[in-house]
């Protein structure tokens, strides 16, 4: 083989790698089921998010089947693997809509995928329910009527942790966000809010998604003499950052403040993570009767404790089922009308779906990673809870009053 062949093949292989592996997970069909499409990242580096959505769907299926389904019809999930790639996500979503006839899409992992799929939903006339995606734009300038966000957004997470930090002793912050929609959005939001609280941002950087070595950024953060570093890094990137910062001895000098403090990170990083603070979309340690029961059922089925998107996805599915039941039909337009301005008792507190941008108003949490002998890994301890009105941005914006 000649060099030119090698280069051609390298290019072809690169394209191939982006296409990912087809998900072949189907369930047998019963009479006219309500179909929910999950074009989720089930393989590749973001598989942990897709798998969380799938785990939640599995528990939900079990629970809703025990209750006799929705409108007396069974609920069926159709999974497709996007491998975390926006173009693949659109293709798989389109397949689910046009070939399988789903009216509801959910379980999409990355904001970049969500922005691409959401833009198509008005044309397809299907509801896209986000339970994971953080990018503020999804309910602001990129919003459309077919998009609903049940989860806490990136700006909302940044808001919760900013409210917490505003009262704390730390004054100087470095912001490190992954170089894509969610990372940049969160850093922008954090910067605005922390500056408003009379604190200082002493440096900002946007490492590319999938960064393997944070040494250069760690050196800069140390030089900045910040008290804390705000991190909007997705799952694996955050794990690598925390591990390396620990080895450099940086975590003792500059406190890690995570936009999302995930169990995934705590399991992988272990004790080096203890002391990190951040916001949580859903901390499984919330002490409400509904949540205690959910955590137990989840643990019985899967043998582990629910992470943020296990909880958020379950809530989304439960809420959607209630809305369909109330609407008396799975007609998309009627479901949208019924969902708007409706309430739902979530696992961690009350939810309200506001009509103006379909962002669910819900409590926000500041949490800290702590060791607890009851659990095999560090767990989130709740430092502060903020009511929905305080942590939800003004309608169709990423700003807070």
């Amino acid at each position, binding site marked *: *083989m000649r*060099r030119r062949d090698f280069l051609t093949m390298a290019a072809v292989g690169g394209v191939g790698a982006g296409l990912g592996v087809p998900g072949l997970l189907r369930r047998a069909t019963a009479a006219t089921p309500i179909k929910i499409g999950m074009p989720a990242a089930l393989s*590749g580096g973001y598989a942990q998010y897709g798998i969380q959505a799938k785990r939640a769907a599995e528990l939900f299926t079990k629970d809703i089947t025990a209750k006799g389904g929705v409108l007396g019809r069974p609920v069926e999930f159709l999974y497709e693997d996007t491998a975390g790639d926006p173009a693949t996500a659109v293709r798989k979503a389109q397949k689910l809509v046009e070939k399988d006839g789903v009216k509801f899409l959910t379980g999409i992992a990355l904001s970049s995928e969500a922005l691409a799929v959401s833009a198509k939903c008005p044309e397809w006339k299907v509801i896209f329910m986000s339970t994971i995606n953080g990018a503020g734009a999804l309910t602001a300038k990129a919003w459309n009527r077919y998009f609903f966000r049940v989860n806490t957004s990136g700006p909302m997470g940044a808001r919760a942790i900013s409210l917490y930090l505003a009262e704390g002793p730390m004054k100087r912050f470095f912001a490190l966000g992954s170089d894509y929609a969610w990372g940049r959005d969160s850093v922008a939001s954090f910067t605005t809010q922390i500056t408003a609280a009379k604190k200082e941002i002493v440096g900002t950087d*946007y490492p590319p998604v999938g960064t*393997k070595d944070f040494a250069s950024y760690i*050196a800069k953060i140390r030089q900045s003499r910040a008290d804390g570093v705000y991190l909007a890094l997705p799952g694996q990137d955050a*794990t690598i950052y925390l*591990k390396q910062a620990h*080895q450099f001895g940086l975590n003792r000098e500059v406190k890690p403040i995570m936009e999302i403090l995930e169990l995934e990170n705590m399991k992988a990083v272990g004790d080096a993570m203890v002391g990190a603070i951040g916001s949580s979309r859903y901390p499984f340690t919330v002490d409400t009767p509904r949540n205690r029961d959910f955590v137990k059922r989840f643990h019985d089925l899967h043998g582990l404790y629910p992470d943020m998107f296990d909880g958020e996805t379950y809530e989304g599915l439960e809420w959607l089922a209630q809305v369909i039941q109330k609407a008396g039909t799975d007609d998309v337009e009627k479901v949208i009308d019924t969902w708007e301005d409706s309430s739902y008792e979530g696992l961690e507190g009350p939810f309200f779906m506001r009509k103006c941008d379909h962002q669910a108003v819900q409590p926000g949490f500041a949490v800290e990673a702590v060791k607890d002998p009851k659990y095999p890994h560090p767990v989130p301890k709740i430092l502060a809870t903020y009511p929905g009105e305080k942590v939800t941005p003004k309608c169709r914006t990423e700003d807070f009053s």
Partner: protein
Amino acid sequence: MVEQLLNALTLAGLLFLVSAGLSLVFGILRVVNFAHGVFYMLGAYLGFTTVALSGAFWPALVVVPLVVGTLGTLIESSTLRFIYRRPPLYQLLLTFGLALILEEGIRILYGPTAKGIDPPAYLEGAVRLGSLQYPRYRLFVVALGLVVAAAVWLFLRKTRAGLVIRAVAQNSEMADCLGADVARVRTLVFGAACALAGLGGVAAAPMTTAYLGMGIGVIVDAFVVVVIGGLGSIGGSMAGSLIVGAAQTWGAFYLPETAMVIMYAVMGAILIFRPWGLFGEPE
């Protein structure tokens, strides 16, 4: 400055362990091995298992390369061997398929959560170098990269086996006529390349954890390294690793917005002005 230099050397050490094998396999087998990154990932995961079973880090540095290397020889002799004479597209499909199978196999076995490995106790924490605090473990990775690079180079240049390998690389038919067992050389070289990648995975795991997708991430960088350094050249892999390591490290420090661009710009320049790479030979 010293810190960034050490960072660049750490990254270069890991990149060398991966790209050396990629380059060797191309030199000897004339196959672009897309599965190479997965052997790196497999090394990291097996390192996790070995550390968990033995309770110590060092056994992993020995056991894992042996296991991954053995697996490599088995894969070569059961699959790749049969398609050397077919058009290159078959090799692409085969190695790409192998990569997907291995990666999904790892996901099914280990689950989606990353697996952390702790470095041995005396490599934990940071050491003071003047005003600088530098992690002991990273210094170990720099040393490991240098030692392995020297060992591979000496092996290829100074031993009889190395001579045979170089002969096969230069002209496999002629080497065959002269009595070299070409099929066996190919199998062993493929196994050795996989072992190096596995070693790289073990060495990387305490810094990055073992995670899904680490194979794809590293293979892209490794391809850039071999394109810059020249295919089939060990010296080229060393030079390429240093250049890519330096470009990424300094790029991220001084020009963070363009860190990735720098690496590809260097590669582009090489492709235009010296398409056979720094240490390769024109066809």
